[in-house]
């Protein structure tokens, strides 16, 4: 087993363990940290695959952006030290069952497909990515780029509208709702 291989297994192992912990630990802050580790692990995997650019993007966006965002929202909404309530046992059991079954099925299919590597070296460079990203010709990605920019704009506007506390309603701590909770049920 080469060092390369060992590195892979170590990274993968850490990544998966961190991921498992991220979805099982009962302290939310720890969960966020495990998630961070897991995402870093993914970045490491990219490094291992020699796709450094993506690894960088991964770290910048996820670690620098999303995880921070998550942690902020944790602070905004929760006492960090408190243990989270566990889901009902039935749900956990069925989730385990469903997930295992799903994994099994998926893995069976993937394994069965027997992909044959092309055996060619993977040549990419940032410049290439950059020029393709803004090219409108064949295998150019200008249009997706524009689309995603609109998406980001829309998401931003949406976030502002939703998350910003409107000053007029600051006093309104008890949201009103026209419906009593059970009105939609006819028993």
């Amino acid at each position: 087993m080469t060092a390369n291989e060992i590195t892979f297994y170590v990274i993968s192992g850490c990544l998966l363990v961190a991921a498992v912990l991220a979805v099982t630990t009962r302290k939310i802050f720890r969960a966020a940290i495990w998630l961070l580790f897991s995402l870093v692990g993914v970045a490491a995997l990219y490094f291992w695959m020699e796709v450094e650019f993506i690894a960088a993007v991964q770290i910048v966006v996820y670690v620098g952006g999303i995880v921070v965002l998550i942690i902020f929202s944790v602070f905004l909404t929760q006492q960090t030290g408190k243990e989270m309530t566990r889901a009902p046992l039935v749900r956990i059991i069925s989730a385990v069952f469903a997930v295992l079954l799903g994994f099994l099925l998926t893995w069976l299919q993937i394994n069965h497909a027997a992909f044959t590597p092309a055996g060619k070296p993977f040549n990419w460079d940032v410049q290439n990515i950059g020029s393709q990203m803004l090219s409108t010709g064949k295998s150019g990605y200008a249009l997706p780029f524009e689309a995603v920019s609109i998406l980001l704009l829309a998401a931003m506007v949406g976030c502002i509208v939703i998350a910003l506390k409107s000053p007029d309603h600051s006093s309104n701590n008890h949201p009103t709702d026209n419906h009593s909770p059970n009105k939609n049920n006819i028993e």
Partner: protein
Amino acid sequence: MSYASYIALIPLLPLTGFVLLGLCGKTMFKRTAGIVGTVLLFIAAILAIYTAWQYFFVNGKVNGVYEPVTALHFQWLSFSETLHIDIGILLDPISVMMLVVVTFVSLMVHIFSLGYIKGEIRFATYFAFLGLFTFSMLGLVIASNLFQIYIFWELVGLSSYLLIGFYFDKPSAVAASKKAFIVTRFADLGFLAGILILSFYGESLDTGTLVQRLTNLQSPQYLAVTTASFAGITALSWGLTMVFVGGAGKSAMFPLHIWLPDAMEGPTPVSALIHAATMVVAGVYLVARLFPLFYINHASLIVVTIIGAVSALLAALIACTQTDIKRVLAYSTMSQIGYMMFALGVSGTGDNSQGYTASMFHLFTHAFFKSLLFLGAGAIIHVIHSNEVKDMGGLRKYMPVTHATFLVACLAISGIPPFAGFFSKEAILHASFLSNKLIYAIALFTSGLTAFYMFRLYFLIFWHKTTERAQLHNEGSFIIKGPLVLLAACSVLAGFIPFGTFISADGKPHESAVEFSFSVAPVLVSLAGILLAMWLYKNETALPRKLAASLGVAYRIVFRKLYIDEIYLFITKKILFNLIGRPAAWIDRHIIDGLMNGIAAATSKISFAIKGIQSGKVQQYTMYFLGGVLALTIVFLYLWT
């Protein structure tokens, strides 16, 4: 030889009366409705008599027989190339005779009704219905097509229904009208089935063609109808028996007679017309019309004979015990029609067709004296306002004309010479004597009974003890008395018509063969009956009661009309309503409808049962999502490939 010009008027005139009086009788003919109806009928009667004169005496015989003449004929409803209902007018001896009888009796009843029904609010309606009846009856007798008979058969049933229920606010009248219609309708079902059977094999609905084809032993139709069979009985027997069932219903033959006594709820003149003289003999007329067919089918003829004889006897027995004047007359009618029936039953054709002639003869004479009896009873009821004989008595002093005519009628029905009944009844007795001694014995016995119960009635009404009611009123106007006298005259004279020369089974005339010596026994029997009645009922004595008591159970059974009504009631109420109707309605509402509703209810149940799936928890939703994908994967990768 053209009859069409005026003969169609005979039925159409009463119809005009019906339409005219029915549509605008209330507004236009408030008082004159009766006059209008009567005048129209008067014209019809004149035409009928003229027709008879022309038929029998002007046109006369062709090749020694009176030819059937189809005076008018058009296709009314076509079923197929061979089967179609034709409306037509067929003149032959019996239909011409019936024309006369119907129009004449109807005219008498019309006139009588002018007095009888006066003051009634629905005066116009009454005459309209009478018109309708007369029209239907005429249509029936002149029918050339079997289905035409059926059509008018139903229509006379309707008129009967309407007239019985004329006093519609009396629940008993309503019930009686209902009963009459339903019982006859039941019988009509038989008639209809008979028509279906005969027409299918005979491939025609025309009476003449049918008779001609099915009596021709070489015709394919004859072969078909005699070879086809169901339950071991040939189609011909089935068809004729079924037709006879229809006739028996209309003619109140045992056991379909139960409607007739109840039908007396109608106005008495109506009873005289419909339930004595005309409609009830339609059954006899029907059998006579198809007589050649019956004749070749011995089985059905036996049925006719037996039913006729049994009816005659039973009705006479029951009549002896009844106290309602009209009911006695009703049973008497039934008994007399029984006579006519078995007379047909024992008849042969050709030279042997005495029974046929006798039957028709009796039909003819009976029409006069029985309507006379009813009208007499009507006159009495008009005065007494009761049907019960116990309210009458000693009326001979107060109602002399009625008394006299009633006596004539009683003598006529008892078969005392020289009244009309004597001749016709002797002919029947003679025919049965020649054919079957048992029938003859029954007939003779019944004849005695007839004399007994008629004179029982006579003595109870006109002699016996005078009641208070009897003294209250006078006899009534000329309008009431006139028809009585006319009919009495007919009852006396009708017997002298040489009937055999006009009517016989095959159209060939034959002389009446009754010998004087043969008549002795029946007359004696009748006289014995009369004397017995006189002894028991002329004065008020305890004898009748004692006699009844000594007869005990037998008397009770007869008094309760053999419990036939109760049996019917049991069948209809308990079986039809409770065992079929009610379950049918229940099943429909609860099982079939319940099934339909059940489907809806089950859907809604399921809907509620599965609502928990939509739990409102987004994690479960995602789990279902994954579950769905996995299930699809399993199905399409492993199961459904």
